[in-house]
């Protein structure tokens, strides 16, 4: 492996990882591993890191020896960054990425409105960063290389899968021939054309959109703010949409809608692309074409993300249109959902039924993403004359009427699903205001850490264990903190406690959690709220832990 980690001059696009023979290939009988993850893209890498942080050894297989070709997924959402923080590489992503919160929408030649995705302060992470997928994968691969429990095998391609009652048997092709490997559990993170899906004879079904889009990454010096610019029917590209995004290294992503009749091979040629870019930037614009791709997309998903002992995560399980940045972001959230559950089951802290909840929760999230993505696509590319008439009516009205701006849909940008209907939630028994219902991802807020330094609530609650966030410092709060520890000991799972005083410095946290002295939020290892109380005793915390681990099923 080219060991040039830790610096920012690594050319992640040309990085090649060496195939290395593993002793498993010479074993007389197939070796059994707890978890094999197939696919070292953003989802597989995030899952492997998370499992390793849970002290679960993981074999990560990749059929190739390179990172992402081209920038591909470029928008990484606040929730994904919070997950990367927990995985130990969030800071690097944010330092390299272009942070943005503001989007502008244009119709024909006019700006019709702008929006701010994160209008309030007091969050560690911005609404989005733009960062080329090869950096994201590179930083994740760097982090993975620091974890001895991750056994990353490049040029290891799965060519056979057999499910048994207590394990999965994989046949793996390498440059030196095939070998077999057994795993208690397998995660298929091998992308939209998942070979794991094919090997199991499964399908991802849905709706294909009859439209083509051109992505052009151009390198240039351009004095524009880091904002998302979206044009409906601009003068420079009539009857179609255009999206402009800033990436690091002076690279700009331009996404041109082309229509279904466009010839993908023809449109990929620089002599076709350059005039399109010049129409947007001006005839005398100086730029280099970095990467281009013509794509179509579908909104689809597998019926069930859990298939026996194989778990599908990311694009292998579901696909969306790019509008809304819901592909890679939801995949990383799949990984986070699966990691702690696999760890709990492998450690005998939870029954196998907990793994069913991975499917239920992430299928629910995928449906939400597909719904949002389909609606955005129907708005951006109207499918009928009347749909186009209403779309244009909305855009005309949006110039002067605020209500119409709420109808403009250039992509509802990725936010994590609130798992309201999850069986792992304990329903509220006390009254609370605000959006942090059981099933929601915990909100961030500034905190003062135990050592007196400024910190963030989600960092403090990022141990990877269940976390009791206890507000106040009175007797009720002290008893609640004790109850959480006691309940964890009784349930056989560690529970970390984060204490938040109710004072001036913690006013935002107190408000976001609608907290009073003694209020407790119980967070799952993936930072989703699973229960909350005004007063907690060990009995109710234990019951909530049992429910969140499916131990009472």
């Amino acid at each position: 492996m080219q060991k040039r980690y830790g610096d920012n001059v690594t050319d992640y696009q040309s990085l090649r990882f060496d195939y290395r023979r593993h002793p498993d290939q010479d074993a007389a009988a197939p070796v059994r591993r707890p978890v094999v993850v197939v696919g070292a893209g953003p989802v597989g890498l995030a899952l492997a890191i998370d499992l390793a942080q849970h002290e679960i050894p993981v074999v990560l297989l990749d059929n190739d020896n390179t990172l992402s070709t081209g920038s591909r997924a470029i928008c990484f959402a606040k929730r994904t960054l919070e997950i990367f923080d927990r995985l130990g590489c969030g800071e690097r992503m944010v330092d390299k990425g272009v942070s943005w919160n503001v989007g502008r929408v244009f119709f024909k030649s006019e700006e019709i409105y702008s929006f701010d995705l994160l209008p309030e302060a007091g969050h560690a992470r911005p609404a989005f960063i733009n960062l080329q997928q090869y950096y994201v994968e590179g930083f994740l691969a760097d982090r993975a290389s620091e974890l001895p429990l991750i056994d990353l095998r490049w040029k290891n391609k799965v060519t056979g899968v057999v499910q048994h009652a207590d394990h999965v048997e994989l046949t793996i092709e390498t440059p030196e021939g095939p070998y077999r490997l057994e795993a208690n559990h397998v995660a298929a993170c091998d992308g939209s054309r998942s070979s794991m899906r094919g090997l199991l004879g499964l399908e991802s079904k849905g709706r294909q959109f009859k439209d083509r889009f051109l992505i052009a990454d151009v390198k240039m010096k351009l004095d524009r703010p880091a904002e998302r610019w979206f044009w409906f029917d601009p003068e420079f590209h009539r009857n179609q949409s255009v999206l402009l995004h800033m990436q690091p290294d002076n690279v700009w992503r331009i996404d041109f809608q082309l229509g279904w009749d466009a010839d993908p091979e023809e449109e990929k040629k620089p002599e076709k692309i350059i005039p399109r870019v010049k129409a947007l930037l001006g005839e005398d614009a100086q730029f280099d074409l970095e990467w281009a791709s013509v794509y179509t997309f579908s909104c689809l998903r597998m019926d069930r993300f859990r298939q026996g002992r194989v778990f599908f995560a990311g694009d292998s399980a579901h696909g969306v249109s790019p509008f809304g940045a819901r592909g890679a972001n939801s995949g990383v959230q799949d990984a986070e959902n699966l990691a702690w559950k696999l760890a709990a089951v492998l450690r005998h802290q939870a029954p196998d039924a907990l793994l069913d909840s991975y499917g239920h929760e992430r299928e629910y999230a995928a449906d939400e993403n597909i719904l949002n993505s389909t609606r955005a696509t129907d708005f951006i590319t109207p499918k009928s004359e009347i749909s186009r008439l209403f779309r244009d009516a909305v855009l005309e009205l949006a110039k002067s009427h605020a209500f119409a701006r709420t109808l403009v849909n250039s992509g509802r940008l990725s936010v994590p699903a609130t798992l309201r209907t999850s069986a792992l939630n304990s329903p509220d028994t006390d009254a609370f205001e605000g959006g942090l219902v059981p099933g929601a991802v915990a909100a961030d807020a500034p905190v003062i850490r135990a050592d007196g330094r400024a910190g963030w609530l989600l960092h403090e609650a990022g141990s990877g264990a269940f976390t009791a966030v206890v507000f106040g410092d009175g007797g009720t709060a002290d008893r609640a903190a004790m109850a959480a520890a006691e309940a964890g000991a009784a349930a056989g799972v560690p529970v970390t406690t984060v204490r938040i005083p109710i004072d001036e410095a913690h006013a935002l946290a107190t408000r976001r959690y609608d907290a009073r002295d003694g209020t407790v939020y119980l967070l799952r290892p993936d930072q989703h709220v699973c229960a909350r109380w005004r007063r907690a005793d060990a009995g109710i915390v234990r019951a909530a832990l049992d429910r969140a681990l499916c131990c009472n099923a």
Partner: protein
Amino acid sequence: MPQANAAHLTTAPNIDAPDDFYEALIEAHQGLSTDESHAFNARLVLVLANHIGSMPVLRESFAAATLC
């Protein structure tokens, strides 16, 4: 006079001066081409829908406007 309520669509007569309204509606389309009239109607639907606001009432409106 019957009042619109949030829960249900009013289909009982509810316009103060029906003849004045109808005349004004046709008047609003004066001088517009057919395409412009369609676009005007689309904007009008959106403006009125926002005024109504309630999704159940809007759904009942779609049903009422569907001839069957």
